[in-house]
């Protein structure tokens, strides 16, 4: 009887040890800014850019979703970041904000950038939002 109690006790201790590995702590959900939304302001003759990294090859796209004031024409381009902190463009469009205000290019993995710039039409600063998608 004593031996059986000892066995049960040992098994309980052993299984309790195993069960501990299954306990998981609750994870807190952090609310962070969407890294794929680029919001900034462009002054007349100026530009703003955002760097990003593709971890795999795929389609890189940027859509000018809104401007303030509405109807402003902005340039939106895709390129690679240079050592001088400039975004050297491979391709660009001049567009007003909207669902079709999109530029997309196939890209290899690596660092890239999106640049929004004045194409020569701005007379006052314009705020904008660009949605970026990539692999």
């Amino acid at each position: 009887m004593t031996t059986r109690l000892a066995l049960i006790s040992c098994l309980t201790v052993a299984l309790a040890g195993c069960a501990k590995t299954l306990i998981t702590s609750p994870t807190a959900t952090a609310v962070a800014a969407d890294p794929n939304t680029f919001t900034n302001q462009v002054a007349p003759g100026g530009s703003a850019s955002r760097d990003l990294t593709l971890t795999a090859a795929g389609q890189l796209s940027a859509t000018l979703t809104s401007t303030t004031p509405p109807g402003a024409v902005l340039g939106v381009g895709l390129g690679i970041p240079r050592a001088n902190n400039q975004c050297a463009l491979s391709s660009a469009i001049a567009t007003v904000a909207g669902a079709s205000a999109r530029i997309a290019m196939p890209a290899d993995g690596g660092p890239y950038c999106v640049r929004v710039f004045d194409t020569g039409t701005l007379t006052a600063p314009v705020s904008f939002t660009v949605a970026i998608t990539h692999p």
Partner: protein
Amino acid sequence: MSMRLLALIAAITAAGCGKAAETPTSPTTTAPTTILFAGTLQPGTTRFYSYTLNTAGTVTAMLASLERSGTPMPNALEIGLGIPAGTGCAVSAALNSSSQLIPHLKQDFGIGTYCVRISDLDGMPAAMNFTIRLIHP
């Protein structure tokens, strides 16, 4: 018999439910090197950049940007990979293309000194700023 069972249970418990201690090992990989060859190309001219491979492997070259006064230009230029020869770069592979974000050229090389070359064969209307991204072992 009971003592044997006790010993067995003790052994299982000590083993931590089968989770044996492991010594982590780091994989030995060499990160590729990225070179940005940037400059201004005058119409009808050629520029090149020499680099050394200490490890054999694949080299990729991409004309990532071609701009004039900050505006991307659609002109096609010749991008080539080769070996330095005299005061130039003798290319073994070349391609005429406008800028893009995927590699134009991909070629395997052994250890040694090599070069990447950019040439205006079609006659650009004006000088343009270029950026070539070169990735090698």
